[in-house]
């Protein structure tokens, strides 16, 4: 590992200020994971493995991915088009470290605030966030190991972060987490990748909004819904897919709460800027860790699409049927349009729908049918995201569901 000497293309004061922000965010412990931006299909990146170490997207960036994030993602101030520009020196790991070719490192930090219109009035919160660092080390031509480690602090009973805990604090103390850890190998001229470990579930569109109903209701987000298992992925220029044999989450217990089953997706490219795919998931557990119901078998099955309509506009859509042994048939879906007003500045509109299915014991328990529970529930997101510097972005979401919430995030990735 060697430090690169360079002439900063930006003023030193600006760089210094940027590092202060980065460090502040780091100490505050921002959460979660780095982003996978599926609207990159507008740049004809219909697959994910070119920019990400994970062939199905997310977390660790390849050196090429880092360069593209500097050329295509952030706002440029030099007046050059991505075709004319060269990747900036600051696009490297920590902004200046040149890594060996066999090693990819990254990290993500986020601090967020919410302003919610709750029953008793407007309420402001600043979330305690976590830092994740992640990476992948290649061993020889085919084998690799990788994973992530971070910290989290969530309230007792929170459905978030817990499932990824390594330490055993059950209340609102700090805990070490590991969302992903795996060993793997590439074969078949690197079209196939086999992995074993704790992995993101291959299902649907890998969007960063983990609280979107389509990710929450199917429990397929990258926040803490990962499972231990065996995965096989395939990537080519016309198709890609991955299947995961779910063996359970061994970072929680007892065994009655562990879900076992499968999850997979398969996607066909329709040209360089459109893709259509299907997903399916099925798991069974003796007891569900969220609802606490016994002998629960749940599934999600549906289709998704990613389309670039001209250069600035990308459309993402996903719709799934929800099956659960304790509920009637349900469904969940979303449709999101992303418009890039100018490079680095995005406006997004999202519509989502959810009906989890009416509980089969609902009439006995006198649970009334309500939006999301036997009736459709609708939500809308009005969002803006600004990639204003290398490694930094801010995002604002106005989330309109049964209650209104304004979510603001400052994100830094290493």
């Amino acid at each position, binding site marked *: 590992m060697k430090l690169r000497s360079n002439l900063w293309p930006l*003023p030193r004061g600006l760089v210094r200020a940027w590092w202060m922000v980065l460090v502040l965010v780091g100490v505050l412990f921002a959460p979660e994971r780095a982003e996978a931006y599926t609207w990159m299909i507008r740049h004809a990146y219909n697959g994910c493995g070119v920019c990400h170490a994970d062939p199905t997207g997310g977390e660790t960036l390849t050196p090429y991915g880092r360069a593209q994030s500097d050329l295509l993602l952030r706002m440029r101030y*030099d007046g050059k088009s991505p075709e004319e520009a060269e990747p900036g020196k600051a696009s490297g790991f920590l902004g200046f470290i040149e890594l060996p070719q066999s090693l990819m490192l990254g990290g993500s930090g986020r601090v967020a605030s919410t302003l919610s219109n709750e*029953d008793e009035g407007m309420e402001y919160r*600043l979330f305690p966030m976590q830092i994740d660092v992640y990476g992948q080390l290649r061993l020889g031509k085919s084998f690799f190991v990788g994973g992530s480690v971070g910290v989290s602090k969530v*309230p007792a009973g929170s459905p978030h972060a817990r499932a990824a805990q390594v330490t055993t604090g059950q209340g609102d103390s700090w805990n070490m987490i590991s969302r992903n850890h795996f060993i793997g190998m590439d074969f078949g001229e690197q079209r196939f990748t086999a992995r074993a470990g704790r992995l993101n579930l291959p299902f649907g569109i890998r969007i960063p909004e983990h609280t979107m109903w389509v990710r929450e209701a199917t429990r397929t987000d990258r926040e803490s819904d990962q499972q231990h298992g065996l995965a096989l992925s395939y990537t080519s220029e016309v198709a890609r897919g991955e299947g995961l044999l779910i063996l359970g989450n061994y970072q*929680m217990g007892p065994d009655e709460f562990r879900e076992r089953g499968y999850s997979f997706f398969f996607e066909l490219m329709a040209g360089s800027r459109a893709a259509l795919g299907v997903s399916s998931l099925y798991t069974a557990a003796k007891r569900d860790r969220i609802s606490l119901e016994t002998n629960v078998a749940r599934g999600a099955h549906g289709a998704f699409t990613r389309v670039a309509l001209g250069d600035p506009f990308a459309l993402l859509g996903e719709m799934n049927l929800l099956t659960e042994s304790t509920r009637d048939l349900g469904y969940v879906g979303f449709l999101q349009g992303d418009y890039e007003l100018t490079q680095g500045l995005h406006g997004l509109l999202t519509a989502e729908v959810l009906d989890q299915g009416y509980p089969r014991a609902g009439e006995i328990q006198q649970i009334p049918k309500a939006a999301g529970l036997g009736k459709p529930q609708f939500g809308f997101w009005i969002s803006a995201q600004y990639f204003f510097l290398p490694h930094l972005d801010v995002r604002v979401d106005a989330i309109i569901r*049964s209650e209104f919430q304004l979510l603001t995030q*400052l994100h830094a990735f290493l």
Partner: protein
Amino acid sequence: MAIIETSRPDHASFRRARRVSAAALVASLLLVVSSPAWAKPEFPGIIIDELSRTAAPPEKPASTCIPTCSLCHTSPSPDLANAAQPIANSLLAFRSQPKPSGGMYPASVDPDNLAVFLDALENDGCLNTNDAACMNVPMCGPCDADGDGTADVAELRRDADPNGPGQLACPKYGCGARIAPERSSRPLDGTAALAALSAAIVFVRRWRRR
């Protein structure tokens, strides 16, 4: 180590970049430091804390199980609209109703007054006329959502599920070891120290250049 030449962008672009980044930096700091409070405890934590505070074994043991949001909510995205589990219906029925001891119950349930509602659920007559505690009796007893003869809060104290049969299951998270409890009551202490250190480094370097 080689120095790589780069082309210098124009000054207008730099000024624009400075303004934008300065604004983003200020906004970020405001976002970070403006909130007067750390995240509020959510209801499950309040419930377990209250049951522990009011524990008086053997009649009123403390619960050992931190309930999940599904104790009251029928959705993984909990909000008031889906607070529809039987125990939640009973708890919400106390809103804006007169207390037996005089006065009124609060009009809404929030983290600051949840303990009042839990006390009502445990010690006052149930106000949810659909509850089993109000069936075929001249006066409602403490709420019993699943009608098994054991009142809801009494079931919580014994780690039983008040909404149905069986025990209130408690998943346990983590593989082992434990991080020491957080001791500081001011979560921004580390941030303030680091910010001060960073500022000090900047000022020292500028002073040396003079």
